[in-house]
């Protein structure tokens, strides 16, 4: 029986939810994954006593049972919510600067405004006005894009029309003069992988608003628990999964999906594919280029790839308080340069003034690591391309040199860390290239430049009949969007098959 209604290629967030949704609707689905575990980025690995979280820092869009966010609703409909245990993170983030400056932004809007006003009294009014703008912007956005107001107009939604496509830095400059304040308010741009100079305000505002409104979450067992739960649901709904078995070829005939060939040369007949693989690889390596419409090739070549990441996974033989780590989410900064200088830093295979994020999940979930221990995930964004210029023989040296610089930066803030390290592992952009198979190890798919945002690009659709995309390459980045993108792809197919 080598025919399936749908073949899903890749078991990252998008592939998993697509597969599970399709199976839930009774379709006969095959899920192919190159690796031996589901999740893609959404995974964990063990070293000694520790299980390290790879990617999830703050899950967005969840909300509470009483006030559910979109992600919660979709996970509930998928039937996996009861298998997951979420942990609310009480703050947005803590900022620690090398010069000793500290601030913690709360999820409560009024509190955050108050803390900011306290530290930046000279910008008091501007802070209030900025938060008002974010709120108005978010309301406009929700009315037009979620509630789909048919009568949307510039008069009705002035904030949206004026600010959506402007870059975030321009707006921060418009409101504030204090460079440190601007830096603090722009840090979430790192979650989208684009410096504030190139990030549409639409993204920064919505992310900030989302986390305040629906709170950031983590998950017991980390993101692997989510991946395993979705896979489990898929299997119990009759889905077939093959791990250690990638897709090698997609066969297209007269513009229509025809079959998939697996790494072990198994040819599987199907009319529908959800690709969780990048469109770059899908159109260039999986599909015969002759079958790819010229316009699609041109469109793809014009895009930019997002950054990859450089990450330290550290296991400590003590509790967080012994290290003076008090918050779950910590941005470590040593500069207030939020210009395109950020981009230059992301392009260098070394670590100096880079912004970095240190998450210590044990603060919100004391059971996260074994008793008497804790762990930190320290990440900074790096483009993958420069790493390919390192001669393979020098790779280990460069990797450890960067890790050492990063650790020094961490020590500036938390001086006792070095004495308590029990395990430490380093992931570079090359690690991501290898483990995700994405070009240049891009962890966020295409770069979220305004020109590459959802308004302007094809998203999950393809001119090839029966082909859909899911995951970070279809639009917005991160856990919530990629999880939801799979469901959207599945729904498109369900509609076409009339399986509703």
């Amino acid at each position: 029986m080598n025919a399936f209604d749908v073949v899903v290629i890749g078991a990252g967030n998008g592939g998993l939810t697509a597969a599970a949704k399709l199976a839930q609707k009774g379709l006969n689905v095959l899920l192919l994954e190159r690796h031996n575990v589901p999740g893609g980025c959404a995974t964990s690995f063990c070293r000694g006593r520790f299980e390290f979280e790879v990617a999830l820092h703050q899950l967005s869009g969840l909300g509470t049972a009483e006030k559910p966010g979109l992600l919660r609703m979709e996970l509930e409909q998928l039937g996996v919510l009861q298998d997951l245990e979420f942990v609310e993170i009480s703050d947005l983030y803590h900022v620690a600067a090398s010069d000793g400056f500290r601030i913690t932004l709360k999820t409560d809007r009024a509190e955050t405004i108050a803390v900011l006003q306290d530290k930046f009294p000279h910008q008091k009014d501007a802070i209030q006005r900025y938060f008002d703008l974010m709120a108005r912007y978010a309301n406009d956005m929700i009315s037009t894009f979620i509630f789909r107001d048919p009568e949307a107009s510039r008069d009705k939604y002035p904030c949206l029309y004026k600010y959506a496509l402007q870059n975030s830095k321009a707006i921060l400059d418009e409101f504030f003069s204090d460079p440190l304040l601007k830096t603090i308010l722009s840090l979430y741009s790192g979650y989208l992988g684009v410096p504030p100079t190139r990030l549409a305000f639409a993204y920064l505002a919505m992310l900030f608003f989302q986390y305040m409104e629906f709170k950031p979450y983590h998950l017991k067992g980390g993101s692997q628990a989510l991946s395993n739960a979705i896979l489990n649901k898929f299997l119990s709904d009759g889905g077939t999964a093959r791990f250690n078995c990638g897709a090698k070829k997609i066969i297209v005939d007269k513009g229509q999906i025809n079959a998939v060939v697996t790494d072990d040369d198994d040819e599987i007949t199907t009319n529908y594919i959800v690709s969780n693989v990048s469109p770059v690889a899908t159109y260039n390596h999986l599909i015969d280029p002759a079958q790819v419409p010229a316009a699609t090739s041109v469109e793809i070549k014009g895009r930019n790839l997002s950054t990859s990441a450089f990450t330290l996974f550290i296991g400590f033989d003590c509790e967080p308080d012994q290290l003076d780590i008090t918050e779950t989410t910590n941005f470590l900064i040593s500069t207030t340069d939020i210009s395109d200088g950020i981009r230059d830093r992301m392009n260098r295979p070394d670590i100096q003034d880079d912004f970095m994020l240190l998450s210590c999940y044990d603060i919100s979930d004391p059971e996260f690591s074994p008793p008497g221990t804790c762990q930190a995930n320290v990440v900074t964004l790096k483009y993958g391309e420069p790493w390919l210029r390192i001669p393979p023989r020098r790779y280990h040296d460069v990797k450890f040199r960067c890790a050492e610089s990063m650790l020094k930066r961490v020590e500036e803030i938390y001086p006792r860390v070095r004495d308590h390290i029990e395990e430490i592992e380093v992931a570079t952009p090359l690690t991501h290239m290898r483990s995700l198979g994405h070009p240049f190890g891009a962890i966020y798919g295409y770069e979220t430049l305004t020109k590459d945002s959802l308004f302007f690009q094809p998203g999950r659709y393809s001119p090839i009949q029966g082909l859909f995309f899911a995951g970070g390459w279809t639009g917005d980045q991160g856990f919530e969007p990629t999880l939801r993108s799979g469901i959207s792809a599945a729904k498109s197919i369900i509609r076409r098959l009339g399986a509703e």
Partner: protein
Amino acid sequence: MRKGIWQEFDGYQDIVEEIKVSRKLGGTVSSAMVSAEEYIRQLHPDRLELCVSDIITETPSTKTLRLVSKDNYLPPFMAGQYIALYLEIAGIRTSRPYSISSQPNQVGYYDITVRRVENGLVSNYLLDVVKRGDTLISSGPAGNFYFNPLLHKKTMVCIAGGSGITPFMSMIREIIECALDRLVYLFYGNQTIDDVIFGAELNRISKRFDHIHYIPVIEEPSRKYEGACGFISRDVMREVLENIEDKSFFICGPQGLYDFCLPQIQEMGVPGRKIKQEMYGAPPNIWQYPGWPHEVHQDDVFTVNIKNGKQLTAKAGEPLLVALEKNGVVVPSLCRSGDCSMCRLKILSGKVFQPAGVPVRKSDKKYGYVHSCVSYPLENLEILIQ
């Protein structure tokens, strides 16, 4: 939503222009078309095709196989890492990890040094059957047993037993050839003096280099032997080490070495974070392991049903992975010590014994996944291999 509403947003036209330009000039994607795969293959090849270029007899029970690459390229590795050999012996497709004993500052060849294990399938094959010119297939270099500059102190206390000397040989060779700033105390335990691998080379090195100290410890010494005797105890170590400050401990060898030496090191007051241990395969005599249910005998036989696959029988005292391989079912494997998760599979029904401390992800445990190289059937099983 009104269709295309964003076309009315401020700045829309500028972006349309930007897209036109980028389609003409190409974004960064266009340079990524030259795929990174070749680069990745140079660092982390999936498989290596190796040729045995030389066989060196080290001791009556040990030989070094010198392996060169068929395509003249061997990836870099860190001293202490291993490769897994993939073989088919007597119709059984299996794998075994072997630490690379040669130094990483040259990758013209990899040496692996294999000691005979009584009744062992692969070691006997490598020692008795494999000859110069033969081809062997392996994984790329793997494993986490190496000097980590972020964590380890420059003074290394290395504790080896039997064939566990191999990763240390690679490290020591690198240290002297590359003049690395490290100080090494190597305690090397063996049953008899004849079992010592690399003894002559280690003696020579330690005489010549002040920063390499070599302390052989012989369990059953002959009369005229003058060195340390018995096991590598804390007294033996104390005699050589002035203190335990600013030192990192590395230990590699058979299970018995860990069972004896780890408590000794801990009693000296060395905190766990300063002790790095290499795994060395599934524990022998698993039925004597703490937690093994006394009602199950090592020779008890259970049936294993593979979902959508065949049915086979497996012995309680034998890892599930081995039983599967003997029945022609190949599950990917690498470390064969429970550590790397490669051999992960799902138990749908029935119980297995997996020793405490095997690093299985929390949520894997919840959904019944086990590492089959260190899982032993205690009941009839149904399993899912995906």
